[in-house]
């Protein structure tokens, strides 16, 4: 069991007030807060070790390179990848998906091919494929979602065929928190010779993830949702798949050699080894240091404990939310064992933004809108939704306060 009261001491921002009320931060699915340890690690890097990485012999560059490489190693260990060669640092999950779409999809997807995604995807796992399909002419098919927000596995089985080249699926829905059985989907995808790409933005911060066990080919996630800084994220790629791919961006760092051929008057280029082949230009070294510290922080707590804590909070919140006001509706499945700590809801007669502004008045931060998942809202027949999402520093007392304010909202109607 983790102790959220002890954990809260590490998060400076949780001491502040918003609109004269103690801050209650329930917008963790959008981004998490940062512990002192992460902030200090980044400050220490910039104050004591800052230099560009690789290809310099001076002391500072060697220190920075060592930190940067260690960050890859520790992230690899965190998700049980085979090694740092399989860990590409990117800006976030969005860039991870775009890297796969452009570096793999652009070259491999033909007109007769098909890509499968689901209707519960974040726009970042839909839009890159839709853009690419306009260039390459391949078809995109969407897995249906059931009325309770769960994935319709039958629909997936009906869609997949030998034409399918990649299946794109979120591990955890960013709207409902529902956990998808990506292992099962990956097995079927592989049976048909397709690759499996997983958006892990909402799973890696909240539960143990083992990419080997899931047996997926690509897995993207963001540092800022797991206590790390913004601007850094991870694309895990199975080594054999990454080795067969050309780079995404061109520039320094991702090449081993660029030599000018006097006969052809062209430059011939040899790519660098993994993962640097996919990390063109000066990377976000400070961000990598922050991400590494975030991973260490989560490892000290234990991801099983993180999952258990969020499940406990969700179990505590769900019935209280449903009973606090007649006009309040929680969307999606209520089975807390099948979901992470994300609770989408609405109040009849109020827009999600009204709910969020009302709560904001009391220092409670929730998100409102489509949460970048408009197709799922269309399935739910919703104009938008409010979303409360929990993390390691949230407490039952905060939920009690949240419920009190929701009751007040109900009484105001």
């Amino acid at each position, binding site marked *: 069991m983790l102790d959220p009261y002890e954990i809260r001491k590490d998060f400076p921002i949780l001491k502040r007030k918003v*609109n004269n009320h103690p801050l209650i931060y329930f917008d963790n699915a959008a981004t998490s807060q940062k512990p002192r340890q992460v902030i200090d690690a980044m400050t220490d890097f910039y104050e004591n070790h800052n230099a560009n990485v690789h290809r310099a012999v001076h002391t500072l560059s060697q220190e920075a390179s060592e930190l940067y490489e260690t960050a890859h190693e520790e992230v690899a260990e965190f998700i049980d990848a085979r090694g740092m060669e399989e860990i590409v640092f990117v800006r976030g999950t969005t860039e991870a998906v775009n890297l796969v779409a452009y570096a793999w999809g652009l070259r491999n997807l033909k007109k007769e091919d098909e890509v499968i995604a689901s209707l519960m995807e974040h726009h970042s796992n839909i839009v890159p494929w839709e853009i690419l399909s306009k260039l390459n002419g391949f078809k995109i098919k969407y897995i249906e979602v059931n009325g309770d927000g769960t994935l319709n596995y039958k629909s997936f089985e009906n869609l997949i065929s030998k034409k399918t080249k990649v299946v794109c699926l979120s591990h955890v829905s960013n709207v409902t928190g529902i956990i998808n059985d990506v292992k099962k989907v990956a097995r079927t995808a592989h049976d048909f010779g397709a690759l499996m790409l997983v958006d892990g933005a909402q799973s890696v911060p909240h539960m143990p993830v083992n990419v080997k066990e899931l047996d997926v080919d690509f897995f993207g996630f963001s540092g800022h949702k797991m206590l790390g800084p913004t601007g850094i994220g991870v694309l895990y790629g199975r080594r054999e798949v990454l080795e067969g791919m050309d780079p995404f961006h061109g520039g320094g760092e991702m090449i081993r050699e660029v030599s000018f051929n006097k006969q052809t008057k062209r430059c011939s280029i040899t790519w660098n080894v993994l993962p640097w082949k996919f990390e063109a230009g000066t990377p976000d070294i400070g961000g990598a240091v922050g991400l590494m510290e975030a991973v260490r922080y989560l490892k000290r707590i234990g991801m099983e404990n993180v999952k258990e804590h969020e499940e406990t909070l969700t179990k505590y919140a769900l019935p209280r939310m449903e009973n606090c006001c007649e006009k309040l509706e929680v969307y999606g499945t209520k089975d807390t064992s099948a979901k992470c700590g994300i609770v989408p809801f609405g109040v009849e007669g109020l*827009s999600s*933004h*009204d709910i969020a502004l009302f709560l*904001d008045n009391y220092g409670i931060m929730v998100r*409102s809108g*489509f*949460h970048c998942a408009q197709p799922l809202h269309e399935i739910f027949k919703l104009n*938008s939704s409010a979303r409360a999402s929990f993390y390691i520093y949230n407490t039952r007392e905060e939920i009690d306060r949240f419920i009190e304010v929701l009751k007040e909202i109900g009484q105001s109607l």
Partner: protein
Amino acid sequence: MTSIDDYVARIDGTCGKDKDVIVTFRYEKKDEAVKKILEKASLKKSVAGIVFELTFKNHSFRLYGSGKAILRDLKDKQELNALLSELLF
């Protein structure tokens, strides 16, 4: 001369099917803005003295004591600016 920008810090379109507009008043001017708007608009309902449901010239909107307002059914930015001008000056 005082302008809307002296009172307004941000104007954001909401995310969702309803294209509402959220106006955030400048922190140092929010109390003044809230007071002025409450003087000009008709109060339909007040919740705990922090949320005000108001109407003004066929526009219904909500004003929050934290210095934010959510405005609906506006045609364009011109209509929003005209409404804010009338409410604030």
